[in-house]
């Protein structure tokens, strides 16, 4: 059983394979925003390296968004068409949550932020749940046996003004200060570049002195198909598969023209 995962929501595209033994193989492009051209050749290289063909794929997984609208559409359109042609089901993988699998042993909070332009970020905050904390699960993928990974949603994914996202993050951390002495938050994503300073200043505010912040290193900062594949396998184990027609992009924002029209009326 192989899942083929597509990640095209960021500047650099990648594809990955995962099998039932949780072995993951990835192929990435270092060309920026050239997903339409590179995607299928990349899939071909990945499969050939593993001595597989496209017919060995049992499920198509795709990073559903948020991210670049165009990038999301290239990924979703490709995943849908591959699934339609191969007569297989699909798995829709939340892009923000996939960052948890960048750091599977991390106990702190992860906070992926993508530059959404117009002074906003697409972002959210998530945390792996330790077994002893499992009872307090707010929102977890799986409530099955303890071998299963589960995580909680500290701040729901969405389009935010950065201060608003940080405020929600602080609020979530305050309510649990009794449980954890110091909170650690690691930021990911292409939103770090434009907002790093602002985040560092926020941390220096008096009420945040027991929040430690870190920024993911460049090699682990951005979207990766290997993490999408790992989350896809988890979603598959939870029975979260979809027909290709039900595989939908998650933009988290309306089209500009639509927004303006609503403002007018």
């Amino acid at each position, binding site marked *: 059983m192989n899942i083929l995962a597509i990640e095209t929501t960021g500047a650099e595209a990648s594809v990955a394979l995962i099998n039932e033994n949780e072995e993951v193989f990835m192929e990435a492009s270092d060309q920026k925003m050239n997903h*339409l051209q*590179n995607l299928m050749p990349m899939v071909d290289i990945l499969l050939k390296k593993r001595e597989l063909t496209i017919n060995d794929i049992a499920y198509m997984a795709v990073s559903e968004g948020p991210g670049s609208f165009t990038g999301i559409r290239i990924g979703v359109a490709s995943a849908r*068409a591959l699934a339609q042609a191969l007569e297989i089901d699909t798995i829709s993988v939340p892009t923000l949550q996939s960052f948890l699998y960048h750091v599977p042993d991390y106990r702190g909070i992860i906070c992926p932020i993508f530059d959404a332009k117009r002074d906003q970020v697409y972002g959210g905050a998530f945390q792996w749940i330790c077994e002893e904390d499992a009872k307090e699960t707010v929102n977890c993928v799986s409530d099955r046996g303890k071998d299963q990974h589960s995580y909680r949603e500290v701040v729901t994914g969405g389009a935010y003004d950065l201060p608003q996202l940080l405020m929600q993050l602080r609020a979530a951390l305050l309510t649990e200060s009794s449980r954890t002495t110091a909170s650690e938050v690691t930021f990911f994503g292409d939103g770090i570049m434009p907002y790093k300073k602002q985040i560092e200043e926020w941390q220096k505010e008096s009420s945040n002195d027991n929040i430690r912040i870190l920024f993911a290193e460049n090699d682990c900062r951005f979207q990766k198909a290997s993490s999408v594949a790992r989350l896809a396998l988890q979603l598959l184990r939870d029975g979260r598969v979809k027909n290709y027609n039900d595989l939908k*992009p998650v933009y988290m924002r309306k089209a500009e023209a639509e927004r303006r*029209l609503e403002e007018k009326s």
Partner: protein
Amino acid sequence: MKNNKLITLGIESSCDETSAAVLLGGREVLSDVIASQIKVHQVFGGVVPEIASRHHLNNINPVIDSALKEAGITLRDVDLIGVTYGPGLVGALLIGLATAKSMAYALKKPLVGVHHIQGHISANYIEHKELEPPFLALVVSGGHTNIVNVSDYNHFEVLGRTRDDAAGEAFDKVARVLGLGYPGGPLIDKAAKEGNPHAVEFKRVFLEKDSLDFSFSGIKTGVLNYLNTQKLKGLQANVNDTAASFQLAVMEVITAKTIMAAERMNKDKVVVAGGVAANSLLRQMLKEECDRKGLALYFPSPILCTDNAAMIGCAAYYKYQSGQEDDYYLDAYPNLAL
């Protein structure tokens, strides 16, 4: 393969129509499914690229399923996949392309990228089974105004093109200022039927002597100026008269240049294609002129004038027959030249 003929799946998504079609051989259309977004864009007064892209993505797979079902085949029966790769809205094009590339890869079938204009011209092969190149083609739509020398199925020479707005674009803009709505082509055509085409003498823009190029931005301004002048005089311009006069001014230029090109290139056949080819005045004027000059005139039926995938499948078939095929690096080209 069916009856020893190739089965082609055509895919088109260059503007606001999501379409898939199945062809048997080059000219027999087994299905041609078109999901139009006209209603979606009407509230915006024109096509909004981001919204078009979103709808293409939602529509494309069900449209392909319908086309296959209507043709009575499955994807595994398909021998060839043809897809528009330009010109058009890049975000719209890439939905068709990502889909076509993925399917070609999964099915291990050849992939052929098609120029949208070549598709429009090919619509005539579907309509007129006996038609063969060489001929002179006029392609007029919301995005294009081209006079093309078609010497073979796959050889084109653009003799004239618009230097600013496409003819259909001018229709959209004038319809908007006349308060007729969107899309402009059919609305102006309808209003003009009730109006006097000689009520206002709008300037016919022929550019340099012997030029086969077009310019339609001037006449759009002319209409605006006329409306403003009437307003200043305290008069209400007659919408039907204005529409009829505008339409006549545009079609006179298009007809004259098309006939001039056919004579210059020594062609005995004139082939018209694109959305504006559905315009009743253009059809009538070209018919009269071609009859007078002894030229054979070909039009597709109105449904084949709009953006559709059957014409793309047809063009892909003839490209493939001549040995052309694309690899999986095929990209979208919003300004692709013919």
